[in-house]
């Protein structure tokens, strides 16, 4: 009898041990289930955000491409439709001025017309030039960049040290992106950085190029840069992305900044 009781007791305790182990495993399973579900949900969220960011980037890049195209068209139209017609006006006025039968009042009026036409022509040329530097189209990136530097240095105490190698294997639209990047970098350094010494190097590499830009301006906080950058920098980033390149920025307060752009196998 006592033996039977003891055996019974052993059985109950054995069952208890197994049920405890079972319970522990079940709760452990529950915890793991929630843990992995959570991980999966977070992964999905990150994926979603990344897709959104990618989309935004693409929109930005397309905007820049369209913008350039539109600028090109406006510059072309300005040249074809306005400048050429104004040239005709100016020529005709000159012919009229040579006419001896004109009295002084009329001549004065014609001179006034000629004056305004010349100024308008000059403005149109300037606008077209800013919209699409013709020199880039005709003489290539190296000459266009050198002209750009001259423009900035001619009337100011700013110094730009530059070493530009010509890149033979860059197509026209990509050349324009590099040119705009350079323009934006210089503009930023002067306007926000208050720099007066700039350095730009454009080196040709085996299957691409490297652009290094340094300034001695006030610099900026890198943490701030990563969180929120202005339209100018955003533009540079997008253009670098269009070129299939990488942008590296080094900067700290009052120590100037260094921008390095590496482009390998752009456009392919």
């Amino acid at each position, binding site marked *: 009898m006592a033996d039977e009781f003891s055996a019974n*007791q052993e059985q109950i*305790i054995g069952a208890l041990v197994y049920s405890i182990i079972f*319970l522990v495993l079940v*709760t452990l399973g*529950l915890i793991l289930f*929630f843990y992995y579900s*959570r991980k999966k*949900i977070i992964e999905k969220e990150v994926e979603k955000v990344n897709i959104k960011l990618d989309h935004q980037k693409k929109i930005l890049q397309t905007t820049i491409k369209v913008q350039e195209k539109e600028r090109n068209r406006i510059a072309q139209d300005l040249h074809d439709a306005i400048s050429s017609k104004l040239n005709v006006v100016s020529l005709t006025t000159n012919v009229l001025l040579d006419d001896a039968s004109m009295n002084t009042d009329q001549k004065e009026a014609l001179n006034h017309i000629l004056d305004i036409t010349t100024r308008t022509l000059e403005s149109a040329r300037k606008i077209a030039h800013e919209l699409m530097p013709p020199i880039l189209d005709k003489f290539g990136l190296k000459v266009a960049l050198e002209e750009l530097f001259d423009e900035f240095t001619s009337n100011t105490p700013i110094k730009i040290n530059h070493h530009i190698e010509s890149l033979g294997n860059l197509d026209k639209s990509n050349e324009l992106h590099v040119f705009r990047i350079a323009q934006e970098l210089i503009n930023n350094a002067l306007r926000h950085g208050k720099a007066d010494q700039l350095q730009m190097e454009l080196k040709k590499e085996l299957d691409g190029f490297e652009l290094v830009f340094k300034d001695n301006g006030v610099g900026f906080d890198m943490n701030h840069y990563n969180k929120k950058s202005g339209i100018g920098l955003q533009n540079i980033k997008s253009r670098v992305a269009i070129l299939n390149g990488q942008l590296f920025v080094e900067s700290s307060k009052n120590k100037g900044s260094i921008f390095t752009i590496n482009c390998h196998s752009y456009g392919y």
Partner: protein
Amino acid sequence: MNLINHFFLYTGFILVFINTLLYLIGYKQNKKAVAYKYFTLYLLISCIILFTSYIVARIYKNNLYVSHIYFIGQFLLLSLFYHSLFKKTQKKYIIFFIIIVCLMLGIQYILRPDLFFRFNLFEIFITSLPLIIYAIMHLYNSLSQNNDYLIINAGVLIYISSSTLIFILGNYLSDLDMTEAVRNIYLINRILYVVYLTLILIQWQTSFRRIKNR
């Protein structure tokens, strides 16, 4: 076997003491976190109860009435702990549980005061089940947002659920002779308690130590 039993018993003592000390030290840095306050209080009280029950057992042999303070204290403090972690609608459930449990236990003890000297099965069940529900709710909450105290939560879920099973059979076990098999069950309880305390320690290590170093 006896050696292992003693090892886990004293490891439990040491861990509960260390945990209480660490959470008390970090108390100043985490003053604003209400959940932290309740959890520290919970640790402090469970530390005191553990040592008193040990001493009482040495002197009077029967220390079961200390267990009632332990179960009710644990229920109230962990309820408040989860209360401070939960969202608005979930908080209402906790308040509801606290009121119901206190009411039912109060009535039970008025009617049957003799239950005070045994394991009160109803008490164990009614104070542990809500805690398991809270722990699962907290896990569920952690799916959609970044939640703290997940390691402690895992410990609560594992330890409370399995120890409840042991305590529910406590009356049966305490009537039996202290055979090897019965000892094994208490050993499992001690091991799980050590695991629970280790998880609490890991939680402190991962979440609250960094605040201290800042």
